[in-house]
């Protein structure tokens, strides 16, 4: 079945799910954590009938210190690099048990949550394997806070150009991170899976409907979700949602879908907010010089326009 044909009920402000969250309050995430906000929104959108797999990382550590757990859905954590492989095992087990009449007939999505390091660096092999194998009820969510925050703000391949981290420090001979952010959505899409999307918690209904679509799709889905980290980004906690909005309106993090290989740009940004508005609220960029910002602006526009052109090539697809 094509992703574009997957049937799901879209959430609207009027149908926003009520009742307790499947991620309980009382977890130990930092004040203003945008990652746990994104996670909670997606779990709200999914309800309770799914199985969660977490990679080691902030979300695992802050939600599950024995003997407490914030997870009101079945949840397993094994290690750092293997969330996709663990989820593959869970998903395959459910298929086998259903076929052998030892599990209910109902489809149960298996959702792996991992950070950017657990996805784009140490976990990319396991993820690629899982996507290539086309597991039917498999969703992988990368919660991207753009560095190894759990271990103390070390750079990952998702750390943006110019960002100061503890292993990409700015200095007399360095501008901070000297490479461009790895494009995981494109890498996921290259596996020929039915559904890939990017999302931001500032656009909460868009994000929630994307994971609902991911759950309806038969075949692997990959969501790359922007996850503001006030602690790691040296940003005021109250600016988390603001940064999650600015990253989209500046064109730095376009939100789009790839449905059966066809691109849909969900928020077209014709008059972008100046990127300085995004960069200046985060201490990790404070060392950047005007020429560095010019370079970033140029590359951001180039990347955004590439997505825009891809979306223009597939005008008929319907986005979330």
């Amino acid at each position: 079945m094509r992703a574009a044909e997957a049937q799901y009920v879209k959430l609207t402000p009027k149908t926003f799910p009520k009742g307790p969250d499947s991620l309980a309050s009382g977890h130990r995430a930092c004040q203003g954590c945008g990652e746990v906000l994104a996670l909670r929104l997606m779990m709200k959108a999914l309800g309770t009938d799914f199985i969660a797999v977490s990679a080691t990382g902030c979300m695992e550590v802050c939600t599950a210190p024995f003997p407490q757990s914030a997870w009101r859905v079945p949840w397993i954590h094994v290690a750092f690099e293997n969330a996709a492989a663990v989820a593959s095992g869970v998903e395959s087990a459910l298929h086998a048990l259903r076929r052998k009449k030892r599990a209910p007939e109902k489809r149960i999505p298996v959702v792996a949550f991992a950070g950017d390091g657990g996805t784009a660096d140490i976990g990319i092999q396991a993820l690629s394997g899982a996507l290539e194998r086309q597991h039917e009820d498999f969703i992988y969510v990368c919660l991207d806070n753009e560095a190894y925050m759990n271990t103390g703000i070390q750079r990952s391949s998702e750390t943006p150009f110019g960002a100061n981290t503890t292993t990409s420090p700015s200095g007399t001979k360095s501008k901070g991170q000297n490479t461009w952010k790895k494009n995981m959505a494109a890498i996921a899409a290259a596996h020929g899976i039915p559904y890939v999307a990017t999302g931001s918690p500032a656009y909460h209904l868009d994000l929630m409907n994307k994971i609902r679509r991911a759950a309806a799709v038969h075949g692997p889905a990959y969501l790359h979700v922007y996850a503001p980290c006030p602690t790691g980004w040296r940003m005021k906690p109250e600016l988390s949602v603001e940064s999650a909005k600015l990253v989209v309106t500046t064109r730095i993090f376009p939100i789009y879908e790839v449905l059966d290989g066809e691109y849909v740009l969900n928020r077209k940004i014709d008059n972008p907010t100046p990127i300085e508005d995004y960069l200046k609220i985060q201490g990790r960029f404070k060392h950047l010089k005007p020429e560095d910002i010019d370079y970033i602006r140029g590359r951001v526009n180039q990347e955004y326009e590439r997505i825009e052109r891809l979306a223009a090539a597939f005008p008929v697809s319907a986005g979330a």
Partner: protein
Amino acid sequence: MAKLVGMEVSVAVAEAARLCDTDVVAAYPITPQTHIVEHLSELVANGHLDAEYIPVESEQSAMSSCIGAAAAGARTFTATSSQGLALMNEMVFIAPVLRLPIVLAIANRALSAPINIWNDHSDIMTIRDSGWISLFAENGQEALDMTILSFRIGEDPRVSLPVTMNIDGFTLSHFIEPIDMPEIEAVRKFLPPWKPLVQLDIGAPISIGLLGTPESYTEARKATDNVLVASKPVVVESFEAFKAQFGREYKVVETYKAEGAETLLLTMGSISETAMTAIDEMREAGESVGLVRIRLWRPFPSEELLKVLLPAKNVAVIDRHIMMGTPDGPVAVEVKSLLYDAPNRPNVSNFVLGLGGRDVTRDDFKYITKRAKEFKGSPSARYELVGVWE
């Protein structure tokens, strides 16, 4: 009726996983394990085994997928060797603490470097302390039987631990042997469907794999050790149930002409058959020598070993692995530690041989017997390499 068939031992191991109605296989090919997983994928492809076969992209993912599948309540099997086991290592240490009865067949092969595809026990020794139950098979029949037993023991609610079933790479895995193939109904009777203690279930959500802070980590590790140690009577009981059902008798420590023997050779795995032939020849020549073979490597069968080793004058422990930087091999370390407090303990000498597939011959065992008799323990004594170039 069970029937005797000529079959490659690897194929027999895969057939055992079929007889056990395995639900999920997640495996990555590595020599000399390949024939096990090839045959399993054939069984699935032809509908002889109703399982999900996950062709993972690495051994790390193989064990990860097995953990996920077992946590979801599926009977789960995988197989590996050497470098594959090394790559799995991180996950191997997690499975026992999560109490997941995965069965892992290991076609034992030497670890790199230098790269070598042939047999020794260096791979299994890397997971010695991980919390898995560990069984060794000597021949094809044992490989099949031990695989069935691995599921039965691991899934016992008093145990709920993963099990490794070890066969020597090539020297056992690739041999064609006569195998008494049990009827599927008999195996299903011996091994009813697994009832997990807990599982990932949307009807009763639980969290598996929580963070163990300094306040809980020790207790979690100790709990696993307690269960592993307490699994030995279940192993013995399962061997007895197996005998009642299939007629073949197994013990956690096997012996051959050991009673009253002055010198005992102590082995694990398929070289034991060569050792027995050598013992027959030595016995004919008037030598008082016997064999002790460890079938159950973990939990370590202390009481059973003490019972058979103590009456002897000399014990020659044979290791298939060099424990770099220490005086003894891993099996000798265990045996010496076991005997330390025993009064009138035998002389324990240690020999390392058969590394990276080097042939182990009857003459090697004759040489070891001679050296064991000459051996006078001293604090500076080290293992002796047998059959090595000078």
